[in-house]
């Protein structure tokens, strides 16, 4: 297939998929709109994680740190000095990025790699969680409630679920586009080189420190903006939802299951996980905890048989088929 026909085909797929996703809320109920919004949110967070973890190979186990800082920044700014949540979202991104640059500079300057970096990130999120626990016990023992406002775009509050869905759809599309840009540009090649082999990347003249920090900055900025969305969606922020280990794991499971270091993997993974968790919950209703066990078993099986994630596994199979075809 020539590259132009492939290009037209890709454009066509995107237009059709976009059209379906845009009209979708008119045909499904609130429950499914909520589910779709959650898929998009975790797809978006997975995309953000994927830039640092999937492309640059710096496996973060504590992205809840950025998520939580985002949720807290916009919420506290709104409550205390009346900053509009949209502006708050941008400032949240900045706050997340500053935190990312700080921890990144520390970790990368001293060459923390692999599991050590992952654990440093986990510790960061836990530190922030404990700080929040102590501080909120005194000031906001029931969590921080965002006061209900009138339904308007400017207020980032809506009576219906669909507007939240559209906001998240837009954010996910933007993150996908950004990932695509990174994938095809020099910066993406640099990230991949660092992931594959740091020593070789360094010998090619890639500034390891600079590019790792860059991946960290983009990733933490996007993740923190996701935190603001979460706060505006639920209109409540508490330390467990913001900084909990569960959050960090949920963020990285999507890319891992879907395919880390691919453009669509994180969104695909988030979709599969969300559906899986809903279906097991439904099927094992009434047997407390069983759905989590089944969910866990399915995750383990996926990771054993598709270590590269669903998209990675498909690419591998596709490659093998092509090779076999060439041989005959």
């Amino acid at each position, binding site marked *: 297939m020539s590259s132009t026909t492939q290009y037209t085909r890709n454009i066509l797929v995107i237009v059709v998929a976009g059209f379906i996703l845009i009209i979708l809320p008119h045909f499904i109920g609130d429950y499914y709109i909520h589910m779709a919004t959650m898929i998009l949110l975790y797809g978006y967070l997975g995309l953000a994680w994927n830039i640092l973890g999937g492309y640059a190979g710096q496996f973060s186990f504590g992205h809840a740190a950025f998520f939580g800082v985002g949720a807290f920044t916009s919420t506290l700014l709104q409550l205390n000095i009346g900053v509009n949540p949209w502006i708050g979202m941008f400032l949240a991104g900045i706050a997340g990025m500053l935190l990312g640059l700080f921890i990144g500079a520390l970790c990368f300057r001293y060459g923390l790699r692999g599991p050590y970096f992952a654990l440093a990130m986990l510790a960061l999120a836990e530190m922030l969680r404990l700080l929040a626990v102590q501080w909120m016990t005194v000031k906001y023992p029931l969590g921080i409630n965002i006061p209900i406002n009138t339904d308007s775009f400017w207020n980032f509050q809506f009576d219906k679920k669909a507007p939240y869905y559209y906001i998240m759809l837009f954010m996910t599309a933007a993150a996908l586009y950004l990932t695509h840009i990174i994938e095809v540009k*020099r910066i993406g*090649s*640099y990230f*991949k*080189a660092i992931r*594959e*082999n740091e*020593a*070789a*990347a*360094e*010998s*090619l*003249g*890639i*500034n390891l420190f600079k590019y790792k920090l860059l991946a960290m900055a983009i990733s933490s900025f996007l993740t923190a903006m996701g935190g603001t969305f979460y706060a505006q969606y639920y209109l409540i922020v508490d330390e467990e939802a913001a900084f909990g280990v569960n959050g960090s794991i949920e963020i990285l499971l999507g890319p891992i299951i879907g395919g880390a270091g691919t453009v669509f993997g994180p969104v695909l993974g988030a979709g599969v996980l969300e559906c899986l968790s809903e279906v097991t919950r439904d099927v094992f209703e009434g047997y407390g905890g069983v759905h989590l066990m089944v969910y866990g078993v399915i995750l383990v099986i996926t990771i054993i048989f598709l270590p590269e994630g669903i998209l990675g596994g498909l690419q591998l199979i596709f*490659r093998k088929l092509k090779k076999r075809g060439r041989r005959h």
Partner: protein
Amino acid sequence: MSFLKADEINVQYEDMHVLQEVTMEIDQQKIVTIVGANGAGKTTFLKTIAGILRPTSGEIRFLGDRIDHLYPHKIVEKGLVRIPEGRKIFPSLSVLENLELGSYLPKPKAKRPESLEKVFFLFPVLKERSKQLAGTLSGGEQQMLAIGRGIMSLPRLLMLDEPSLGLAPVLVREIFRSVREINKQGTTILLVEQNVFTALDLAHDGYVLENGRIVLKGKSKDLLHNEHIKEAFLGI
């Protein structure tokens, strides 16, 4: 003014002296080899030139400019390119992507098509396999890829760290033939080898490193017949 000159450099890991008072001069367009046993400090020397390790004292000059305080990526920009030991390629990128990664700096990028042609002329097998994942190449092909990727950066000095490591003799000859070819086209080569006799046979000048010190230096033809070398590396 010499091409590259290391002047009395000392390098330490913690409190262990790895290089002691190493002085070395490399002339333009030559092949210079550093030979020595395991742990003599050969790789450390290359890493120091490349800016990955810092000398505790002494200075390194390239065309008269001091480079011993520069970051590794700045040194690559100056045209000093190191090919690390052990075929450090990017396994899940294609052969072509690996090569392109060598040529993202402005100057090499402008010459990317010519450089690619040069690499494919030198190693035709890489052209055949350009779409293949680099991790699926054989050991010898991976070494060719690593060298090719170095050439893509338009090196003025190409530093090769043990290119013959773990390769069958026929492939070693192939690699050494390509090194000679690269040199003929005008690139200065600094070759680190355990394969003492093959390396001395190829090079113009040679240095022998033992326990972090240079114990012998000279024209490699003379070194080949040196009694000390025969004794140390052949056991006769």
